[in-house]
């Protein structure tokens, strides 16, 4: 279930090689993080997750020389870049995102909700999209980073520049809201549709 990296002991040598500009090392790192990064962007409704992921990798390549740390902290580093990219996207493309998502999501949900930053993957069950759309942006941030990116509470706190207590609170309240939405659906509904 967790989407954490699994390079283990080889991480250090891969990182060193990537810092030297070795193609193979970057391919290994991308193989580990590209999926979660793009999944994170999908969960936040970006129209072009691949393009956003490319931007993240570009920034990563620029800043990797200054990075020192473990595999876990590397993941935090990557998603801190991804989160900044998301903020930039939201800031400069609000109108475009609103239009795209309004067309795509509101038609499906037929509900007057804030749809900025909700799941954009077409194969996700609509009830999940609906439940996610009912969360506040902060709750979406936390749940996306916790579930999709596979970060710990502490790592999420670092990425969002929030305390652990606040992250836990947002996680609890977000999950409570999702649970409440689930209770509203018809009996017999299955998310595994």
């Amino acid at each position, binding site marked *: 279930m967790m989407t954490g990296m699994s390079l283990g002991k080889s991480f250090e040598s891969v990182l060193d090689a990537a810092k030297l500009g070795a193609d193979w090392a970057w391919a290994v790192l991308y193989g580990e993080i590209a999926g979660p990064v793009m999944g994170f962007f*999908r969960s936040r409704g970006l129209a072009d997750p691949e393009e956003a992921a490319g931007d993240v990798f570009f920034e990563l390549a*620029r800043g990797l*020389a200054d990075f020192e740390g473990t595999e876990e902290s590397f993941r935090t580093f990557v998603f801190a870049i991804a989160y900044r990219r998301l903020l930039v996207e939201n800031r400069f493309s609000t109108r475009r995102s609103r239009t795209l998502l309004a067309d795509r999501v509101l038609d499906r949900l037929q509900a007057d909700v804030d749809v900025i930053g909700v799941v954009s993957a077409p194969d996700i069950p609509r009830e999940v999209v609906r439940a996610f759309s009912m969360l506040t942006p902060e709750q979406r941030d936390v749940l996306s980073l916790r579930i999709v990116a596979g970060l710990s509470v502490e790592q999420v706190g670092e990425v969002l520049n929030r305390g652990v207590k606040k992250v836990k609170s947002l996680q609890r309240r977000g*999950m409570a809201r999702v649970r409440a939405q689930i209770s509203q659906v018809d009996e017999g509904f299955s998310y595994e549709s």
Partner: protein
Amino acid sequence: MKVDTPLRDGMWSELIDRDLNLLIEGKPPLNEDLAPLGSFVVSLCELADVPVSPEFVRDHAAKAAANVQLVKSANANSRLTSSRRLALALRRRVGAAATSLMMIVGMTGVAWAADSAVPGDWNYGIDRALEVVGIGAGGTAERLGELAVSRGEDVPGKSVSASARNPEARQNDLSDVSGLEHATATVVSIGSGSQNGNEIREGVSRLLEFLASIGEIDGQAVAEYARHLRSAQESSDSHLPEDAGKPAETGKPAETGKSG
């Protein structure tokens, strides 16, 4: 929107984070009421499981590797520029330090050579002049005190050099020695007007240069030079009080402008 939920109010505040962590890790929660959230978590996790094409990875890996090389190259150039800048600054400072050192060595050498001069020697005037400003013997403060006394402003506890004690007696005596001494006193008075020891040393340095340029010690010429120094200083330093540093008269130390 009011949400109708079978969960008791306050249940979520009691929910331990452990259950949520179990859910997120894909394990069944201890509280059965949370079990339906498992499907939600699975659906979100699937977003990250979308396979990434090898072409995408290869393409971006190559770009990133090239980008790293670019950054390294830029950093190297930046370091090179910095080192060049540092080298230039260092060269400039070393040059300035060397010049200062040469001046100090030169002046010290002159002072050392003149220190043992006796009346009649070519450098006796320099010896006396340097004594006035405290180079080679005594300190600047002490010499300034001597000059103050020479102007009738007695400074208790300070020794007074014989040459400064009775300048009136040498009013018309423009021998080489007294001319030099007078010129040096003028330099001191200029410097003491601004309370700046560096100006005194600079003035002495210019005086020595002048002496070197004329090739021999000529009391009249030195006195003239002192007057020139005084007038140049006054024209460039108009902010001094009106009574500060009147032009030096022949054979007479200049006014310093200091009030006793």
